[in-house]
């Protein structure tokens, strides 16, 4: 009897996994059946496929066929296990992704030698000065790409490539001089980690994050299904009742920001969707080359520039082209300018629209003749499916956000982190003292409390490592992982009841002392930043203090779980 029941569960899991991905793959091809362009079918199929996979997985468990008992226990089981499998990766993704909403600011803070950057600069004049620098510093390069500052991007950065290799250089936005500051992995580390992890080949990392995201989506939908009274319990919190409190906190952190959670996980999946669901594109286009060109033409600012002519010709000033683009998209509307074959008669200049003032990431660009500066081409609007993809992409990145909305994104991201963290704690709490002290319980301590601690250690390393250290960015990242490994060791050696408050407490201390460390190691302490109106440094000090208070509160609450639990039971 037991074996029969176990076989039924195994069948459901297999059906959900294989059927979910199989039907999703079919859906990604089915878009091609509609009478529109092949690329429209490919994009629409990819967008639909993740919804199909999620729906199939939940329906397989909700189906009555071959099972006794109600629907809810089975869907609860799905919620629990899909959530647990995804949770460690998803917790790290939510946390680092939340920090990545401030990646430019983090990088600026991690290069304290560089002066504060002006937010509004004349990008047209700036790009010509950077181009002049590139002509000297990167002769022979066949492609330049200059990212220009806007309301969100603080530092202009140029990338070049050619037969002599590739390189990049950040510039000061006011003087256009190469930015002279310590090498750092900056906020970019958190940004990259949140979608491809680290210390694994990046394609594997992306797959791991993708699988965790899809499981997370399944956990969210099944969570909504099993939540008995989504709206009746909307504001419910039963404090001091042990597991009940964790459940209420988990529910509130999941339900109140639910639109954000759905948006961020689903859009995260579709941004890398062609990697996870390549089947529509494989069916529509022959060969990797054609596939890449077709997808790029619809989703990124790409233009077939052809071969260089071999005849030298001076590059016209970029500023007039950029001003033309500004007239269409606004002064803050430029993302980057790309120059193909600079110094050649066949040179082409692409001016690409940025995120300012629009909730879409759809490619929009102008193509100019490199020698004369004449406008050759304006990009056509993308198809409807690609417009949806562009909208989701923009919603995920939130680059259109003003400082207030940026802050709300950050808070909602932290709520997502806490949703996953409370879910993990619930899993162990539901399994009694044995669960909390078991492998899962210890791993929870290492991940949930260890990750903020490791992030603080990363920022400490930025201030303490010698400025001229070779491979400095890598050393900062190793400090992050060393601290995390140490947290794991502590979680393995100490009982969770001791490890929880210890790791929370150390994290709180590290964040709390960061403003002090900053004041001691840089000429930009809090009071000076405040009086000079340096928003990045003031904000960073304040956020560190707030994080220290938050982590400190967690340490305080975790200090004596047994007495608290008894209290909770008496209260109940």
């Amino acid at each position, binding site marked *: 009897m037991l074996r029969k029941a176990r076989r039924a569960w195994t069948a459901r899991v297999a059906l959900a996994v294989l059927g979910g991905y199989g039907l999703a793959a079919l859906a990604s091809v089915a878009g091609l059946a509609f009478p529109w362009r092949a690329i429209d079918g490919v994009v629409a199929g990819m967008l639909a496929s993740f919804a199909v996979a999620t729906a199939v997985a939940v329906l397989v468990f909700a189906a009555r066929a071959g099972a006794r008992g109600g629907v809810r226990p089975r869907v609860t089981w799905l919620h629990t296990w899909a959530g647990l499998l995804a949770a460690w990766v998803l917790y790290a993704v939510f946390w680092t992704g939340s920090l990545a909403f401030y990646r430019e600011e983090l990088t600026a803070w991690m290069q304290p030698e560089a002066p504060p950057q002006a937010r509004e600069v004349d990008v047209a004049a700036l790009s010509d000065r950077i181009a002049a620098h590139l002509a000297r510093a990167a002769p022979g390069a066949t492609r330049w790409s200059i990212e220009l500052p806007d309301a969100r991007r603080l530092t202009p950065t140029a990338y070049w490539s050619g037969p002599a290799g590739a390189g990049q250089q950040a510039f000061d936005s006011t003087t256009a001089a190469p930015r002279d500051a310590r090498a750092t992995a900056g906020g970019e580390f958190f940004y990259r980690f949140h979608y491809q992890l680290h210390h694994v080949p990046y394609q594997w990392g992306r797959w791991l994050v993708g699988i965790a995201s899809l499981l997370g989506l399944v956990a969210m939908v099944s969570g909504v299904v099993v939540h008995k009274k989504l709206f*009746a319990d*909307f*504001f*419910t*919190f039963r*404090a001091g009742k042990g597991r009940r409190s964790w459940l209420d906190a988990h529910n*509130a952190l999941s339900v*109140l*920001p639910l*639109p*954000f959670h759905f948006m961020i996980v689903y859009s995260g999946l579709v941004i890398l969707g062609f990697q996870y669901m390549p089947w529509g594109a494989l069916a529509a286009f022959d060969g990797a080359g054609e596939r890449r060109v077709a997808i790029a033409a619809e989703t990124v600012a790409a233009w077939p520039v052809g071969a260089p002519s071999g005849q030298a010709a001076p590059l016209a000033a970029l500023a007039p082209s950029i001003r033309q683009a500004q007239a269409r998209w606004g002064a803050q509307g430029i993302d980057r300018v790309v120059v193909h074959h600079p110094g050649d008669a066949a040179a082409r200049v692409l001016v690409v629209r940025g995120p300012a*003032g*629009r*909730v*879409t990431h759809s490619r929009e660009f102008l193509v100019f003749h490199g020698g004369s500066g004449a406008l050759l081409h304006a990009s056509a609007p993308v198809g409807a499916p690609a417009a949806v993809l562009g*909208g989701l992409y923009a*919603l995920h990145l939130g680059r*259109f956000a003003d400082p*207030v*909305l940026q802050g*709300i*994104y950050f*808070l*909602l991201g932290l*709520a997502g982190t806490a949703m996953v963290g409370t879910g993990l704690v619930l899993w162990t709490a539901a399994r009694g003292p044995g669960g909390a002290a078991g492998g899962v319980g210890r791993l929870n301590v290492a991940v949930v409390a260890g990750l903020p601690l490791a992030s603080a250690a990363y920022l400490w390393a930025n201030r303490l490592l010698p400025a001229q250290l070779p491979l400095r960015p890598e050393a900062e990242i190793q400090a992050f992982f060393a601290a995390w490994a140490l947290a794991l060791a502590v979680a393995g050696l100490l009982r969770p009841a001791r490890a929880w408050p210890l790791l929370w407490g150390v994290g709180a201390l590290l964040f709390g002392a960061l403003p002090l460390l900053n004041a001691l190691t840089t000429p930009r302490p809090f009071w000076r930043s405040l009086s000079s109106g340096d928003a990045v440094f003031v904000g960073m000090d304040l956020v560190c203090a707030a994080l220290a208070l938050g982590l400190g509160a967690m340490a305080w609450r975790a200090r004596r779980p047994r007495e608290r639990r008894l209290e909770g039971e008496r209260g109940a």
Partner: protein
Amino acid sequence: MHLLLSGLCAIGFAALALGMARHQNELLGRPLPRAAGLAWRALGALALGLAWGLAGREWGAALGAVLFWAHAMLAAGLVYLGLMVHRRTL
């Protein structure tokens, strides 16, 4: 504008909470008559609708919708925290 939006959303969710029997018991010590509950819910919906409309007028349909939802989620969290603090101080 952000403040106005935030305030309207908070009023909206607080009114919605007052439309629910559980929170009436908690805040007032007794359930309200059915009609009063419905009126609170209508007021809550109205405040939220007004917030969305204002956001749309200020920032346009797309950005306005994003900002409305962001403020709504934040305000729901604030009302939730407020109720929690109220419960603690009882």
